[in-house]
């Protein structure tokens, strides 16, 4: 399918859009918060897919992972451009609920992502916050320390502990 997109097949491109736009838009919305900005970042992500489909290498990972990596960078670039203050809320958007019931068409990784979602939700507020700021807001450990007013060592310890917890959950699946 990606090869078809690389050859200029618009129908194949729209099929991929329909398949992955929900996940891409969820990520850009998580990063940017604003739905309008998120739609722009989502659009930019898919336009990059259209123009760079020939650079995708299947041996390096799934197409969805490649697309989400592009989406994260695109949204973080937009976030820096907007010079927005990082979102400090330790709770996720109430609308962000995993309501989709897995069916036969669900991707094999679906269950693991769902578990990871709940693993993040089960972190303590402090641990969830450092993960949120580091990964979804693109802040370094020093920047997180500055934003939260915590000592750098505390940030490092909490971030490491949070990641160890998530790694443990991931490997249990």
């Amino acid at each position, binding site marked *: 399918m990606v090869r078809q997109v690389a050859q*200029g097949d*618009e129908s194949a*491109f*729209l099929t991929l*859009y329909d398949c992955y*736009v*929900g*996940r891409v*838009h*969820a*990520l850009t*919305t*998580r990063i940017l918060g604003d*739905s309008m900005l*998120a*739609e722009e970042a*989502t*659009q930019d992500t*898919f*336009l990059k897919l*259209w123009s760079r489909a020939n650079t995708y290498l299947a041996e390096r*990972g799934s197409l969805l*992972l490649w697309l*989400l*990596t592009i*989406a994260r960078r695109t949204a973080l670039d937009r976030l820096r451009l907007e010079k927005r203050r990082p979102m400090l809320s330790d709770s996720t958007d109430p*609308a*962000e*609920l*995993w*309501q*989709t019931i897995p069916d036969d068409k669900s991707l094999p*990784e679906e269950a*693991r*992502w*769902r578990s*990871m*979602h709940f*693993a*993040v939700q089960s972190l303590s507020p402090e641990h969830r916050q450092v*993960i949120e700021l*580091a*990964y*979804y807001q*693109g*802040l*370094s*450990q*020093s920047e*997180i320390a500055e934003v939260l007013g915590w000592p750098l060592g505390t940030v*490092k310890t909490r*971030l*490491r502990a*949070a*990641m*160890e917890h*998530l*790694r443990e959950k*991931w*490997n249990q699946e």
Partner: protein
Amino acid sequence: MVRDDHSLLQENIPAYALGALEGEDARALEAHLQTCESCRTELADYRAVSDSLLAAIPPRQPSPALRKRMQARLPSAQKSARPRFAWSFGQLATGGALLLLLGLNLLSFVQMRELQRQQSDVLRQLQNNQAALAMLSYPETQALAIEAEHVSGTVLLDTERNSAALVMWNLYELTPEQSYQIWLIEPDGHRVSAGLFRAESDLPYTTQPIFSSQDISNFVGIGVTIEPAGGSDQPTGPRVFKVDF
């Protein structure tokens, strides 16, 4: 590499996997990863975690308009987005009415110009005839006969007033590319142009006054030839008639 250094660097792997390790710490870990197999394995493990965070968010659909905007950016839409004229019935009717009005106006304009031209011709004929009649009524005016194969008439010559007039019967109409040209003939045979004229289309005769810039008594005759429209410097076409004074 001492064990303590390894442990310190290893502690930074989770932050590195999230992209939160910066500066010197990141460079030191990258250098260490070149030689430490266990740290590379651990990094791959944490990378799997950070990658899973990308998808560990419940799917969220954007507005349907986004798909349309996306499609509009694709090459096929760019081609079809060129402006096209879509005429509604009302626009067609208005356009037709405007064209009809324009046509009627154009027709009226052409008819008006034709009437003006005819009026101008009648006025010119009247003035020419009045000039000829005035000359005829003057006692000193000479009347010289025009005797040619197809054309007859009179040359009215008034040397005192330095004027003349031609009254010609049976002149045929020329093509638009042609014109009659009057020549005054000097004693040495040299011809001086005295004007251009066309045959009257609605009268059997044509009256043409002649006003010379030179003393008309210096000339010894008058003639008419057919020349290209706009006239010639010297006679080039067939002679219609010639009258000696």
